[in-house]
Every structure is written in C-alpha cells, then in structure tokens.
C-alpha cells in the first residue's frame, strides 16, 4: 500500500472567477494508519477525498496510490432495490467473483458489522446506523487497502455514533486498513485517529498536525481525548472566525 499526495491544488472555475479550494497539500500515509482530517466547513476536506478517489481531477500536483481504495460517503447511498446481502455483494458481483466465495465473504462481513439477522432486509427497513454499517461492510468486502471516509457518521444520532466509533476501531484493528477520515467533529477525530490534520479555511492548507498516541479503544469521554480536542479546537477557532468574517463580507 502506498499513498502519497504531492503538492495538490484544486481550483473551481465559474463565471465570476475561480475559487481555490485546496492549496499545496502534501500528505503521506503509512500502511495501517488512521488519519483524520478536520477543518471548518468549505475548507476542501471532502474535495481532497474526491481527488484521492479519482472522482475529481486536481488542478496541479499529483497523487500516487498503490493499492485499492474504498469510499464511504456521508449518506449510506445503499441501493434501495437490493437486499442488505446483495448490497454488500454488489462490488464482488461486478468483479465476477464466484458465487460461493461471494456468499462466504458477505457472511463474514455481515457478522463483523453485527447485521446477520438483517441480511434479507431492504435498506428502507434499516435504521440510519444500520445503513451506515451496511455501507461500511459493502466497502470492506472488496478488501480495499485504503478506506476513504467522508463524514460517515455526521448524519447519525449521538448514541449510534458512539457505538460505531467502537466498532470502527475494532474493525480497523482487525483488518489493518489505512483510513483517511474526514470530519468536522474534533472529538470524533481525536477518538479515532493516529494523526489529526487541521485544515485552514479556504483555500484549504494543512495548518497543523497532531499525533494521537494514547491507547485504544478510546472513548469520546476519555480525559486525554477531551484535552487534545480542546487544543485542536483552539487551533480551529481562528479558521472558523475567518470563515465567518468572509461570509459577513460576502453579505455586504
């Protein structure tokens, strides 16, 4: 597995000029690393993920990826016409894997995300947390080396989120994936990540990097988590104020 991001910039063009979303981003991930990106909204964190996934092209710079990646969106984006098990089997079926192998893999991951009893259900019959678990499993069955996650828990309620933090940490420790996790929730980032990268307001640059070294599994309420979160929040505060000032100017 290799992921190197070298000097990436991204500009969007529109009739009134261009908007610089990202500016000279450098990032390198080590095998099995859990990297969280935090920053004020509109700072280009999600754009960076889209660039890594190849959904968008960078304006300059390049990205070197060696290995398969999986992508998890903010919304579960399950296919409503497929049952849970078929949603999970989707990528394998496209890859023309053999039926027995598909079934075994799907069963394994169903167990991993605790959804075995729901394998015959349709997405609309599941709760938000369950849907996101299916989405995670659907990504994992393809055995990606790198997992890109774009605020995957943002739309969930607090309790469900905490359960999923634990599950994600367990799964990550078990499967040793490299994870790039975008969030605007600082505590979530500290709870999950090995490294937390703080982005500046637009154009997004990496402002500061925090290494999180305390033992896992971590919980949101752990004292160390709260302490580091507060430090990061202080860092972020300036950036968020910048965004607010910019918006005020825009309104004038």
């Amino acid at each position, binding site marked *: 597995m290799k992921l190197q991001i070298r000097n990436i910039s991204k500009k969007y063009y529109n009739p009134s000029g261009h908007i610089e979303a990202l500016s000279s981003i450098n990032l390198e991930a080590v095998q099995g690393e859990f990297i969280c990106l935090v920053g004020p909204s509109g700072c280009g964190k999600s754009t960076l993920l889209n660039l890594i996934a190849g959904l968008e092209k960078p304006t300059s710079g390049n990205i070197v990826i060696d290995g398969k990646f999986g992508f998890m*969106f903010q919304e579960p*984006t399950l*296919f*409503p016409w497929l049952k849970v098990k078929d949603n999970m089997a989707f990528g394998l079926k*496209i890859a023309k894997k053999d039926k027995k192998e598909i079934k075994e893999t799907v069963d394994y991951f169903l167990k991993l995300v605790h959804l075995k009893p729901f394998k015959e259900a349709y*997405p609309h019959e599941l709760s938000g947390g369950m849907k996101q678990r299916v989405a995670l499993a659907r990504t994992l069955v*393809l055995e990606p080396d790198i997992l890109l996650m774009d605020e995957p828990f943002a739309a969930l309620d607090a309790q469900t989120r905490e359960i999923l933090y634990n599950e994600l940490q367990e799964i990550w420790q078990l499967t040793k994936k490299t994870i790039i996790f975008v969030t605007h929730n600082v505590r979530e980032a500290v709870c999950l990540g090995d490294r937390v990268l703080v982005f500046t307001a637009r154009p997004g640059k990496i402002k500061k990097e925090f290494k999180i070294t305390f033992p896992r599994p971590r919980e949101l309420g752990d004292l160390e988590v709260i302490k580091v979160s507060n430090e990061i929040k202080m860092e972020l505060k300036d950036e968020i104020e910048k965004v607010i000032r910019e918006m005020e100017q825009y309104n004038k």
Partner: protein
Amino acid sequence: MKLKKLLEKWNNITNSLNILNSQLIMKRRINKAVKILAIIFLIFFLWWLIYSLNFWPGWLFPSPQTVIKTLFKGFLNGTYIWGILISMRRIFIGFGISLLFGTALGFLVAKIKLLRQTIDPLILGLQTLPSICWLPLALLWFGLNEKAIIFVVVMGTILSITISVKGAVTSIQPSLINAGKILGARGVNLYRYIILPAILPSYITGVKQGWSFAWRSLMSGEMLFITAGLGQLLMFGRELNDMAQVMAVMMVIVIIGVIFDQFIFGNIESRLNYKWGLLK
C-alpha cells in the same frame, strides 16, 4: 417451455414480495373490493332508478338490464371477443414499439447534451398534440390498414414514454452513481446494475401512463377508422341507434382499462414501491 419458465420466475418474484405482510395486504384488498362492489351496485341502482322515472325514451336511455343483456349477447356470439382480440393485438404491437423506441430515445436525450438542447423541446411540443391528429397523415402514408392505426397508437404513446425515461434518468441521485462507480460498476455495468434498476419505479409509472395514452389513441383511432375492433363496435352501435350496444361496449372498454391500469401496472408499481419503501 420458455413461457413456463418465465411464469415460474414471475411467481417466485411475487411470492418473495408477498411474504411480508401478506395477510395484512389480503385483508386490505378484501376491504377495498367490498367497498368498490358496493359503489358499483349503488351506481347501477341509481341508473335503474333514473330509467324507471322515464325522463327519456328507452332507446336513448336503456335500463341496466338491457345493457347487461346486450353485453352477454355480445360475448356469447363472439363479436365482443373478436373486437377485444383485434384491439388488443393493435395495442400490444403499438405499445410494444413505443416502449422499445421511446425508452431508447429517452436514454439518448438524457445522456446526450446536444439532443437535450435540440430535440427535447420538440418532444414536449409534439406530446401536446392529441394522437388522433396524426390520423390524416397516417391514412395518406399507409392507407386504410392496420399500419395506419398502429402508427396513431405509437405516436400517441412513444413521446410520453420518452419523457418519463428522460426524467427518470436525469433525476437519479448522483450519489448512487458515484457509489456504483466506486464499487467498480463502469460503462455497461453502470447501466445494467445502477441506472436501470434506479429508474425502475418512475419508469413503471411512465409505462402505466404510456399505456393509458395508447389505449385512448387506439379507441379514438378505431372510432374514426372503418375497421374491426372495440372502437368500431361502439360506432356501429351509434349507427344502428342501438344505445344498449354503445353502453355495453363502453363498459367493456372501461373494464379493460381498469384491468390493465389497476391490476397489471398498478400491481407492479405498488410492489416496487413497497420494496423500495416508497409506499405510504
């Protein structure tokens, strides 16, 4: 043989969908059927009541009994059965052609920007033209034969299907497409495994609407056109001043319309909506 297999498959699909809440659905259906029967009975009773008041002469306003008698006679001597078969043949051919080409055109318009800018407004414009307006043109092009009437059916149906397919394809959530791409579905696979299933619910609604357009086009075509079929039976009744015949044929037309609209397309539609969780 093939048909048997298809039937089996169809049964499997319907069975698996039915397992959920089948009892509840059954109960609701019976409840609904009772209400509908009651309303039909009431309408017949009112009809009979008005008839017995003798406002109009019997040959202008026949009693329900006469109409039902005519209906039975029509079926027993085969005229209605032939009429239905001939009309059905026409609508299946016309509707089939429309489905095939209308769907293809819908995809093309949705996917190709140039077509969207040029043909799209034209399609909307032509769709507002009542299908029967195509009859003079059809008669001159094809002459007094089956082709002309099928042409009218096709023209009345095809664009409504195109419009619904185009709408369905352009309104697929982009996130579903992205998810499909990320999971490896590209090119043909993207169409087969994402776009086609994703448009299915709105497609079925479009097809259902297309069917009713086809049915209307066919009936108006048949009435103006000297050939067999249900529409012609209706005009025949008029020419003979046989009001019972007119009403009986109208009843047949309504019943066939209801069967297709409610029982065939309506059923597929509600099963699909149930599966997707779109049903309230």
